[in-house]
């Protein structure tokens, strides 16, 4: 009798927390507003400005992480006890991605299950992880080397936008 009561309590608690988890808003990547200076310009100058801005954005794509170098999106990522920096990486579907990862203290690792990636990161060494972002969505990445008490919370999100 006691056994079943406890199991029911545990079940209810789990379901409540589950529902709470489901309804929680995922905090996505906030887009940085492009700061624009308002100034008196001639129509012509305004047009040139606009074209230049379009060009600039298509090259650096502010909504995405890192920079495009020779057609490959390069993103630097640092690992330390117990966090990744940045914690969210945003790339575009279909593009070639090169993560330049480095650990600042002990051995960590970068594991992205959805992309079958597991790169070990010995301290101080830059490691390159290349892949093509073929699947769109939000993917979890986790530290793939046991690095201490906070290893369980050492994770981040890879967002592949359509």
């Amino acid at each position: 009798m006691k056994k079943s009561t406890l199991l029911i309590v545990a079940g209810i608690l789990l379901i409540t927390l589950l529902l709470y988890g489901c309804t929680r808003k995922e905090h996505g990547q906030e887009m940085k507003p492009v700061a624009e200076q308002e100034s008196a310009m001639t129509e012509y100058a305004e047009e040139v400005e606009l074209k230049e801005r379009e060009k600039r954005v298509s090259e650096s794509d502010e909504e995405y992480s890192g920079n495009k170098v020779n057609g490959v999106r390069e993103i630097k990522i640092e690992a330390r006890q117990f966090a990744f920096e940045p914690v969210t990486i945003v790339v575009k579907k279909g593009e070639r991605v090169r993560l330049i990862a480095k650990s600042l203290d002990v051995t960590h690792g970068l594991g992205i299950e959805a992309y079958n990636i597991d790169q070990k990161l010995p301290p101080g060494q830059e490691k390159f992880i290349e892949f093509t972002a073929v699947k769109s969505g939000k993917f979890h990445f986790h530290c793939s080397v046991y690095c201490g008490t906070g290893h369980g919370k050492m994770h981040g999100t890879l967002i592949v936008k359509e």
Partner: protein
Amino acid sequence: MNIVEKIWKTNIKNQLILVLSIFAAVGMFQLGIRNSLPQLVISVTTAIGLDSLIIYKKLKKPFFSTSALISGLIIALALPPGIAWHIPLSAASIAIFSKHTIHIRGRHNFNPANFGLLLSMFIFGTYLAWWGATNTWLVLLLGTLITYRFKRIHLVLSFFITQSILLGTYFVLKGEPFLNSILMINLFFIFVMLIEPKTSPIHRKGRIIYGVLTGAFSSVLIATIPTLDPSVVALALSNLLVPVINSKVKE
């Protein structure tokens, strides 16, 4: 009798299930349902289904295996979030099969969840994320409570002290702070897996030796092969020595 008192006085296994469910819920909240729920469901149902079936065949009576539920939860909480479905399925199956097949001196020798995780590390090359411990303080608090209830504080302490001293000394020799060794202790592992009663020595003194040995194995592994998960390997090694400890230490 209020609810806290009721939970405190109930069966230990159910308390452990409650604690693991809380860890799971907190982890799910942190990582998102999509990354955590599938492996929990797969691991738990595989473990319970298989264990209950095997026991049913032996006893010819319907049986619900709560220890399989515990193994299933531990496996899911250690494997990386969002892992492919076949790995929790295999790890849980290995855990249950090992429990029913690997016997020396009448007991099963390997902690089932630990053995399942260990083999899946070697077969699939998977790493362990230990996301049951997304909240360190919660694990420390509930872990201490459950260890107290299991009357295994001495076992956890013997591991804790051994690893702190050995690894701390190693760190000092390398020019790092001594206290970094405490930061390397896997709390989820020591409070949930190390204390497992059936695969640890029968007598108190034996359990202290077992804790010391596991702490020593773990320290050596951390110092020599940092990319290998130290806890599961260390525990499997100590599990192998339990029959020897039981035959030598009788108090």
